[in-house]
């Protein structure tokens, strides 16, 4: 069939449009700007959920927030002891109830305005207001009236109480006074915790003016967000990177060395290690257990104890797990050492208590160590001799290779030592959470990371009906001890009360502790001002690149017989302006 001239022309025209469209599209897509490499790059493990300090809870968010914001206090990078931050100094009243913070006079926001006590007042009010939806609001409930202000809401979810009922007020722009419900020895440390970092009222209010529909998102845009920390946000792309640049208005900018920092959002273990090994990142936050043996040989991988506990929750509302003898029998046959050394392999410590080691002045109360004989006897006492008649136990965990391996080892041990049948059930994260919250499990994998260096951050989880209890367990004596500890001034008595609580918990065993965490950072050897610590918190403010001389000196002390690796970073180092002057004077 011959085609007509017109039809052919139409067809050619259509083809031309398609080709031009395709080429034009390609050109448009390639035109994206490319950033110069940053002075330092670290991987954050995932994309942050937000940069609003008030509404975050996660470790990855904390890493970025510590770079761009600063609280009343900052933490020492090694000991984590509170140091002056936005507050130059503070006093505590004798009864331990009133804290007076004196603001630093040279503190500035990245827009040049001074940081005042009013900013903290505004930020804390915003943080406690249930309308802000701050998950971590309870971190400020040590303040008088704060708990009621957050919890007591009308039908619309607005607070019933006026904010003047909360014990926070300013005395001029330079002084912030906070009154507590009860003495709280770790209160000053909390002021360096990232959810309590301030936000700029001008930042939020001007966004509300400009974009009444979308201010909640807009004020956080890289081009709008105002910060008060050593860095500010230059650029963001979802699932790619956050580019931070040195904030020249920061009060201590003279001591900040690195000019640009990239925060990557790589989620795959293998990818992040590859990127690190090829120099694309200078610090990554975890290592897959498959490569741990090789990594342990290297100077850039030195795990240290970390404030976290891996444990199983037991559903104490469901027979036969309501019987403490059954729970103890389960605990007595968990092969903890095998899990720590054969599966985790990084020096994780077998756990026999809830509170990890490293809390100053506190010795954990432990449950009994492995004892198969005793376990069998207990099970028999409970009416299941040799495991006979015991319903198949289901180990519930969220989908992950390491959790599966641990569950398999435990299931095997229970079958072998107790003669009970054990099954595994893994669920995708959100379903797993739902199952835990509704107590539809026998035993369920869990973990808890401490928010501050005090046993209370672990112990108060298991009060009767606590939000994060999720075992159905409750004990009046436990509740009494936790409440009493919260009102006790004497630190020794207080810690003893918390220890007694843990002792009770370890006798009752609504949870089966398995191991304590270690940090898993891989760090370029040339990075200075970086210290592994118990909270795995790091402070970009102090980071710098060592020059060759300093690197050699450091390696002479620290390599510990491990193999040397590519140190990353410039051979001549990169130091802060203050350090450069000191060096020039020498």
């Amino acid at each position, binding site marked *: *069939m011959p*085609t007509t001239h017109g039809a052919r022309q139409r*067809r050619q025209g*259509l083809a031309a449009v*398609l080709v031009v469209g*395709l080429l034009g599209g390609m050109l448009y*897509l*390639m035109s*994206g700007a*490319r950033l110069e490499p940053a002075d330092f790059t670290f991987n954050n493990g995932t*994309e942050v*959920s*937000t*940069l*609003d300090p008030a*509404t975050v*809870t996660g470790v990855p968010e904390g890493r970025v927030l510590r770079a761009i914001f600063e609280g009343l206090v900052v933490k020492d990078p090694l000991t984590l002891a509170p140091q002056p931050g936005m507050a130059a100094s503070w006093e505590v009243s004798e009864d331990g109830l009133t804290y007076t913070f004196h603001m630093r006079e040279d503190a500035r926001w990245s827009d040049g305005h001074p940081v005042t006590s009013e900013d903290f007042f505004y930020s804390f009010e915003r943080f406690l207001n*249930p*309308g*802000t*939806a*701050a*998950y971590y*609001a*309870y971190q400020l409930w040590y303040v008088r009236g704060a708990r009621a202000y*957050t*919890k*007591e809401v009308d039908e*619309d*979810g607005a607070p019933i109480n006026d904010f003047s009922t909360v014990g926070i007020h300013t005395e001029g722009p330079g002084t912030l006074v906070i009154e507590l419900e009860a003495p709280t020895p770790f209160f000053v440390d909390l002021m360096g915790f990232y959810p309590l970092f301030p936000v700029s009222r001008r930042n939020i209010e001007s966004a*509300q003016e400009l974009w*009444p*529909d*979308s*201010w*909640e*998102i807009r004020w956080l845009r890289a081009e709008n967000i105002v910060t008060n920390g050593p860095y500010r946000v230059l650029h*963001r*792309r*979802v*699932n*790619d990177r956050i580019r931070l640049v040195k904030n020249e208005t920061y009060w201590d900018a003279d001591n900040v060395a690195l000019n640009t920092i990239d925060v*990557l959002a*790589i989620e*795959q273990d*293998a*990818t992040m290690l*590859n*990127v690190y090994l*090829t120099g*694309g990142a200078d610090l990554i936050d975890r290592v897959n257990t498959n490569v741990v043996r090789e990594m342990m040989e290297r100077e850039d991988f030195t795990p240290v104890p970390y404030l976290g506990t891996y444990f199983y929750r037991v559903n104490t509302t469901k027979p036969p797990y309501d019987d403490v003898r059954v729970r103890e029998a389960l605990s007595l046959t968990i092969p903890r050492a095998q899990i720590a050394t054969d599966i985790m392999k990084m020096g994780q410590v077998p756990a026999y208590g809830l509170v990890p080691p490293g809390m100053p002045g506190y010795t954990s109360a432990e449950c009994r160590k492995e004892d198969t004989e005793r376990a069998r006897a207990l099970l028999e006492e409970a009416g299941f001799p040799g495991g006979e008649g015991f319903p198949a136990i289901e180990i519930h965990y969220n989908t992950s290779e390491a959790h599966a391996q641990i569950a398999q080892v435990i299931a095997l041990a229970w079958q072998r030592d107790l003669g009970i049948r054990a099954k595994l059930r893994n669920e*995708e*994260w*959100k*379903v797993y*959470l*739902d199952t835990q*919250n509704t107590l539809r499990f026998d035993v369920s994998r869990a973990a808890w990371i401490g928010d501050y260096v005090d046993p209370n951050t672990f112990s108060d989880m298991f009060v009767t009906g606590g*939000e994060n209890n*999720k075992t159905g367990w409750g004990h009046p004596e436990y509740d009494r001890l936790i409440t009493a500890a919260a009102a006790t001034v004497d630190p020794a008595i207080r810690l003893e009360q918390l220890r007694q609580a843990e002792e009770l918990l370890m006798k009752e065993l609504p949870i089966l502790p398995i191991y304590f965490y270690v940090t898993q950072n891989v760090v370029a050897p040339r990075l200075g001002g970086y210290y592994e610590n118990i909270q795995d918190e790091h402070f970009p403010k102090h980071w710098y690149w060592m020059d060759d001389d300093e690197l050699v000196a450091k390696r002479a002390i620290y390599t510990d017989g491990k193999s040397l690796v590519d140190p990353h970073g410039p051979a001549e180092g990169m130091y802060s302006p203050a350090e450069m002057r000191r060096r020039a004077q020498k």
Partner: protein
Amino acid sequence: MTRFLLRRLLWFAITMFVVMSVSFVLMRSVKGGPFDQDRNVEPAIEQNLKKKYHLDWPMWKQFLHYVGPLNLDERGLFGEGEKSGEKAFGGVLSGDFGPSFRYRDYTVNDIIGQSLPISALLGTVAMMWALALGISTGIASALRRGSGLDLAMRLAATAGIALPNFVIAGFLIVCFVFLIPLFPVAGWGSIRTMILPGFCLGLVFAAYISRLTRTGMLEALSQEHIRTAHAKGLSPGTVVMRHALKGGLLPVVSYLGPATAGILTGSLVIERIFFIPGTGSHFVNSAINRDYTLAMGVTILYTVLVYSLNLVVDLIYTLLDPRIALEDE
């Protein structure tokens, strides 16, 4: 042709409605919600979160509000503040896909706007490479039918289809990043960063295209008009390129629609391995995160893309084969 397009448009509207309503209901019927974390949230705060994102409304009202174009909220679209009550229009029909639940500093429009160009570029690189490799090997295979070359290429194609792309990616990374350092191991930005992921993503499609081209060419070469062309004394090259190829590529063209869909939705693994901030990972992760709005946004986007690409394929078809006319009167 106008009638053809109109009919397609009608079907498009029906498809969209079904896709949207089914995925909207499915998303929200799955256990676990966007605000569930391992730390439980205060009831007063959860109440505010639900209110803010309208999760306290009945499902039908949430759906109407989501689709638009009428704004059902006196507090403003997605409750973004007291002052926005004036806004009369909102929802998908007004081009607003709402705020993301997981990436709270972004709207779904922002996220798609950032990631789609990257996915599109990666997909285009993969597709062009797949077409170039697939068609050339397919033709060679067909012309040397039964030879060792044909056998080798068919084996390679089978292997390309059978091997998952993350295996190929791992192999290529070991070879071309660590052993012979030619390419960056991951990331996105320069042409060099596109080569390995584009190759891995396109390989399986190259293999399919190669087999389709071979079959199509074999059929085309046995047609009467090819014999006539040969008999007229045309050079073998002209016969293949001008006469046989047009018909021989028809199966490939009809495969382009599904292939494009496959490249778009299948880029998840490659994006994760090569750390590419594309849309593919949102397609899966948004569902895992219960990021209702982002999951809906990406689903709608892919529906539109697959639908319109199939339409383009149909149009190309008529260019290649005059025997096929669009159902016009």
